[in-house]
């Protein structure tokens, strides 16, 4: 139902989303400013100003993506997806490293200047492609076979990113795939079966835990009664994963092994690999309930906190603003994500709905991975915290995603789906 008289443009915008993004953006900029306030020279000193530039560019692009019709976008999706995957392939061939992960090929450089990380673009492209693929289906997936096309769409960029290697982004692709499949109505048990090889791999560090998992999986298969071929395939994949884990472990780079070992036990190598996590927890823990005061964090000021402007920016919040600041940030992220879920729930069409929920899944994966690793709940990977971490590519992708979500919300409001 269209309200023809006096429908102000701003009323069509989803207010919780706008407010939470605005507050998170300001919070993030302030934190980034503080991250540059140290007692020792740091390249991060004026980085908040550069971030402002990225934010401006990002918000501009958000305005563009807001004006983009979802129909047009849906039509363009395969081209975007192919372009993004091509860039990933190109990255593997000519990519360069940066910062702490100099050996990782995750950047595309042009004339010696790094112009972006294709993995970030690929995340959005994968969301669009999955949305297009699943929106065209009328019935929900009922067998593992139905999940294969979607798995391939997410699996290709996932594999390319994992080869860089960038395990953090690979994890985000998994998050996107499962979020979109869930939203498309796939049976959660089916999703569990899909995830089972991964779980098997993770649990294989101990024969005991892996054994229990195989028994549980077998019981699940008997209870769910999927097609016999699928059941066999799942079961065999799990067993092979368990057996292969040692070989797969051998293929990991030493720093990845150390990160995983340090995740299990930070004091494993406190001077090197465990250092990040230990110093992060020291920063957060020493902040206490109310923190040491804005810009006053000693761990940060004296450079004990590594990567305080990118991967480990959240400990700056924890150290300087304490648990209070952490809770405010988490509450804002919750509001933001719930607003996205709400927009997805009221979207006018299934493509838009899946698109917005996919974005929510991507951001959710980023937030729990980044914040979780600062307190040791997740292994350490280098993925940015939305609106806090400094970085061009992800900032652009984030703002474009927000623009798309606002457009979906706008459309449903105009269509009267939402009041």
């Amino acid at each position, binding site marked *: 139902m269209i309200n023809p008289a006096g429908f102000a443009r701003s009323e069509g915008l989803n207010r919780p989303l706008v407010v939470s993004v605005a507050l998170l953006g300001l919070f993030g900029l302030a934190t980034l400013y503080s991250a540059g306030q140290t*007692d*020792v020279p740091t390249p991060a000193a004026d980085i908040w100003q550069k971030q402002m530039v990225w934010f401006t560019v990002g918000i501009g692009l958000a305005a563009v993506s807001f004006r983009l019709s979802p129909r047009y976008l849906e039509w363009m999706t395969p081209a975007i997806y192919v372009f993004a995957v091509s860039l990933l392939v190109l990255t593997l061939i000519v990519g360069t490293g940066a910062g702490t992960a100099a050996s990782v090929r995750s950047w595309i450089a042009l004339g010696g200047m790094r112009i972006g990380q294709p993995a970030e673009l690929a995340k959005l492209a994968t969301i669009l492609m999955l949305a297009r693929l699943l929106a065209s*289906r*009328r*019935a*929900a997936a009922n067998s593992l076979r139905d999940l294969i096309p979607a798995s391939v769409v997410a699996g290709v960029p996932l594999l390319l990113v994992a080869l860089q290697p960038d395990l953090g982004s690979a994890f985000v692709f998994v998050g996107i795939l499962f979020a979109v499949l*869930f*939203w*498309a*109505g796939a049976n959660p048990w089916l999703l569990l079966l899909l995830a089972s090889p991964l779980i098997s791999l993770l649990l294989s560090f101990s024969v005991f835990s892996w054994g229990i998992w195989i028994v549980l999986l077998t019981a699940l298969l008997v209870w769910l009664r999927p097609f016999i071929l699928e059941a066999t395939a799942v079961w065999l994949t799990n067993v092979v994963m368990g057996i292969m884990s040692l070989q797969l472990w051998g293929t990991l780079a030493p720093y990845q092994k150390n990160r995983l070992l340090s995740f299990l036990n930070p004091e494993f190598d406190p001077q090197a690999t465990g250092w990040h996590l230990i*110093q992060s*927890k*020291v*920063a*957060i*823990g*020493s*902040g*206490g*309930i109310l923190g040491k005061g804005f810009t006053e964090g*000693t*761990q940060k000021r*004296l*450079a*004990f906190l590594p990567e305080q402007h990118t991967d480990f920016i959240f400990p700056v919040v*924890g150290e300087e603003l*304490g*648990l209070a600041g*952490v*809770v405010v940030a*988490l509450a804002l*992220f*919750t509001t933001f*994500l*719930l607003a996205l*879920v*709400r927009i*997805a*729930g009221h979207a006018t069409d*299934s493509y838009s*709905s899946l698109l917005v*929920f996919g974005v*929510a899944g991507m951001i*959710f994966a980023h937030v*729990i991975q980044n*914040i*979780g690793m600062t*307190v*040791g*709940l997740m292994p350490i990977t280098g993925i940015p915290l939305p609106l806090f971490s400094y970085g061009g590519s992800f900032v652009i992708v984030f703002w474009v995603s927000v623009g798309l979500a606002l457009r979906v919300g706008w459309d449903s409001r105009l269509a009267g789906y939402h009041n």
Partner: protein
Amino acid sequence: MNSFHPHLVARRARQSTIVIFAIFGALTAAFFNVQVLGSEKYRLRSDKNRLRTVYLPAPRGLIVDAQGIALAENVPGYTVSLLVSSEEELHDALDRISAITEIDSAMAGEVLARWRRAPTDPVLLFRDPPLELVAQLEERRVMLRGLVVQTEPKRRYPFGPMVAHAIGYVGEISERELEERSFPGARFGALVGRGGLEHQYDERLRGSDGVRFIEVDVLGRTVRRGGMGGRIEPGQGDTIWTTLDVGLQQYVAETFPAGGRGAVVVMDPRDGSVLALYSAPSFDPNAFVGAQGMVERQRLLTAENQPLFNRAIQGTYPPASPWKLAIAAMALRRGLIDLDSKMPTPCTGGLQYGDRFFRCWQQEGHGDLTLAEAIEESCDVFFYQLGLRLTLPTILNDGTEMGFSEPAGIDLPGEAISFFPSSTQYYDDRYGRRGWTSAIALNLAIGQGENDQTLINMMRFYSMLANSDGAAVEPHLVERRGETARSLDLTSEVLDGLRESLLSVVQTGTAAGARIADLKIAGKTGTAQNPHGEDHGWFIAFAPADDPVVVVGAIVEFAEHGSSVAPMVNSIVARYLLGENHGSEQYRMVFPADSAPEPVQILPLLPSGD
């Protein structure tokens, strides 16, 4: 059914909401765990990360004399240290400093060793440097980021060499002392007492060091000094009140023959408090403070005349004639004789015993003497016979009971244990069961032989003689270590008689020339055989003889006769009892001819075969 039916979508939205809340709830719980429950632990770790402790050395307690006059005090000084994070940085800083002042390779090595010992602490470069150097270093502070200049109390001894042995001095704790925990609670680099009261009461004097913090970054570079993380002020050590009388001490030091070696102790026999304790040659403890301290100490440690050696408590000498009183006390206690008893053989200048002739110091002989007279004349022949009558085992047993094989127990470190065999077992072990004869008793009877006493232990014995009840006191400068129940176990009449005969030593006997009118000084001279050169002279006296309030003892190396020591001791007694204007200088000192007999070889040079 269309999987995007509004009911299904709404259900999935609800499920998603639950998942989001659950996971953010878990994150919040994790942060609560780290920030609230683990806060204290992480705060400590964060402080440890960034704060380096700089100790603020506590001023040592004062050491004062009985009147409260300071014998050891503190004046402001400086220390210069460096806070560095790596060996390269240390070398770098030393290079820069060497442009201002010379740093030799020995010092650089020492600094490096110190740094390796405690790399997170500031490493000491200069203790008490010249003010000019401090100013120059301060000017270059920009280039020397980790420079730590701080005031540190510096020890000063106002009386210098005059009272050095009793007070001692301070020095940096050694690696070994740290390991052995010789000074409990002292940290690396601390100054601790060396010798004397500084050592004895180190723990009380040391006080509690304060701390301040220097903030460093992740590479250990200094970022800020002071102001951060609070500061704990140092607490000065306790003041130690001694029983010393600095005026008397000064008089003793001035009266002692210049260039001589020996020691003087002045003690109150009634409670054992030491009023003066002087050892010569002395040293200036102030020279050990500061940069050249170690060099000076090394020089004195190897000096031929051993100035660091405290001759009052560490030097042991044959007690000679003063020890005859111990023999007399043994015989009197056992009732073998009384003060009027005479010995069977009168003194004719010596005594034939077996195939050897034991001489008396006076060749013409003393004639027939009573015990009282024998003490007065210090007649060797009388005591030879008395020793034989006592028998060797009795002498050894009673001498040990009187404390001659123990330290006097003065509250000073390093007191030598006086040597005296506790039984004939010693001779059996040393010379074989038949390798010795009872003639040993003759030598012991006149304070020679296997008998080496410290001055302070002889003082303890003479204070027993001085006390009307014959009770022993423990010599002390600050406080007694414990009560000893030792006593001479003689009646007061006998003790009075002994004192009377000691009085006549000064009035008419061997120390007659040292007599001071109006003062009843009782004392005993002695000449200790010194196989390495001139004999050592003893004199121990107490006064007033009828009710002694002071015992003064002196040992002077190479003095030849105890009689030459007597005038000095007597003038000290006069100074103590009559005050500064005692006028003893008016008396002409006549040195009596008291000399020890030639030592008689009574032991076979080689253990005999039978």
